[in-house]
């Protein structure tokens, strides 16, 4: 009984711990773009900007999760842009099964000053995905992506 109890307590402890730890959400502010780009570390990378209040984004997020589970080596960073609480963002990420992805959220407002260093042509439309190849060259997709093309892009640039 004691053993079972310990095992059960351990299980509870771990599950509580893991739950609290489950979705890590880092802050993103103006000036942070170069540090995001440096995450690529010589590999191709996609940075996906999305918002919890953006219907096309919410529709697409579970597909990003599917893509990542089939292309495990693909480097994708997710940045949530709406001014909402981290709990609301975590809830959406959990629903999309993207809790373990590399998640950030904008904490200083999605204004032109924040967008300019990412892409001067970006006027705030979401979703938007910036593809950065090994040489640092970028390609931007506004709106939902075609996952066949995303797959091909990672394959070509790897």
């Amino acid at each position, binding site marked *: 009984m004691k053993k079972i109890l310990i095992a059960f307590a351990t299980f509870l402890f771990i599950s509580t711990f893991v739950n*609290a730890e489950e979705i890590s959400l880092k*802050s993103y*502010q103006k000036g942070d773009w170069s540090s995001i780009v440096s995450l690529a570390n010589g590999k191709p990378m996609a940075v996906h900007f999305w918002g919890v209040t953006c219907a096309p984004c919410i529709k697409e997020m579970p597909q990003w999760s599917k893509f990542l589970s089939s292309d495990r080596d693909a480097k994708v960073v997710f940045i949530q842009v709406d001014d909402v*609480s981290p709990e609301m963002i975590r809830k959406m990420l959990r629903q999309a099964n993207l809790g373990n992805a590399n998640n950030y959220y904008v*904490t200083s407002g999605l204004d032109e*000053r924040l967008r300019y260093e990412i892409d*001067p042509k970006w006027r705030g439309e979401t*979703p938007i995905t910036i593809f950065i190849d090994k040489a640092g060259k970028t390609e931007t997709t506004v709106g939902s992506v075609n996952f066949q093309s995303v797959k091909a892009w990672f394959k070509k640039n790897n």
Partner: protein
Amino acid sequence: MAKIFILGILWLGVFGQGWAQMDHSAHMAMMGMGKPSACQSSGLECANAATPFLTPDGKLLLAWTSGGKVSVAQSTDLGKTFNSPVVVAEHGKSLDTGGDARPQIISDMKGNVFLAYAFFKDSSWNAQINIARSEDGGNTFTAPRSLVQDSASQRFPSLVIKSDGNIFIAWIDKRLVAASNKSGQKKLGGSIAYSNSLDGGRTFQAERIANEDSCECCRIGVSLNPKNQPVIIYRAIFPGGVRDHASQIISSNGPEKIRRIANDGWKTDACPHHGPTVAVSSQGTIHAAWFTQGANRSGVFYANSRNEGASYSAPMRLGKIDASTSRPYLLALGKNVWLVWKEFDGHNTVVVIKQSGDDGKSWSKDMIISQTADYSDHPLLIAQGNQVFLSWLTRADGYQLTKIGQIE
């Protein structure tokens, strides 16, 4: 033994929660390190959007959203000083503060003030438009209530008050999209809905749909034509998922024909959060400006129609081709038209103005009229009598109401 077991679970529960809270506060502390903290108060200094209204007797009413609250203040010296603001509503993080959201405020001659704004009513991000009234010039407001009774999303209200005091309100309504999704047909976007109030906003007529297919995240532009009819402009969804702009006159019989302003060819399912602007001159010319990333043109553009929208002039680009232009806004007074927009050069945001004295046939050169180095709201234009003002909320330089023109 059972007792220890229960205690253990209780302890774990408390510990678990405590840990989660610690994580949160530790995260907050980390965020504060070395970086400026976000502006949190409900004052104008932290507002993301501020909307002005000038009453016939020269009083400025300003409605803004900040710190999760909707506030209204009054100024008798054109925005230099304000009385203490009235908090009309509080929604915390559920308040809609998206890039194209702003509270709407209007007033009649007798000091009846009407306010509308949107917030997110459920965890699926369905929005609700709330309305509130003041019968004492904006000193006190009624408790906000929902504009319509519908479980789907209603967002981005736009208001205009007619000379007879009647109120026109248009908004993005997702009831048709919700119904379509329920029946298994996956659909994106929203619809353009509108209603009128003939009693100063106490009651509204049954809402009507002007266009079933519109973008769901761009505010609607509204202006009155010489017949006192609202002319609306919005990002419609044309066949094939093309999100180009349309204008439409709302007559007493209902919505008239949907008129395409330009074939930009922006096929996208993105949320641009970047709605258009419209102003109708005393001659009935419809002046329109908008942002697009279409296959045929990309940037911010202007066009006009002299036949109630049946055809539009060729789009004219605003700003240089690679300038970061955004947020156009138009105002017409008689045959005079003012057009402003924002440009960002990597350091400063400037407001650029263009003016026409002949109903949009010819235009002055671009001129920078204001600039700021921090966050700024959309530049807005407002008239009172024969005077025209630029209304611009900036984080670093405060709220500014600047006289930019006058007609004889």
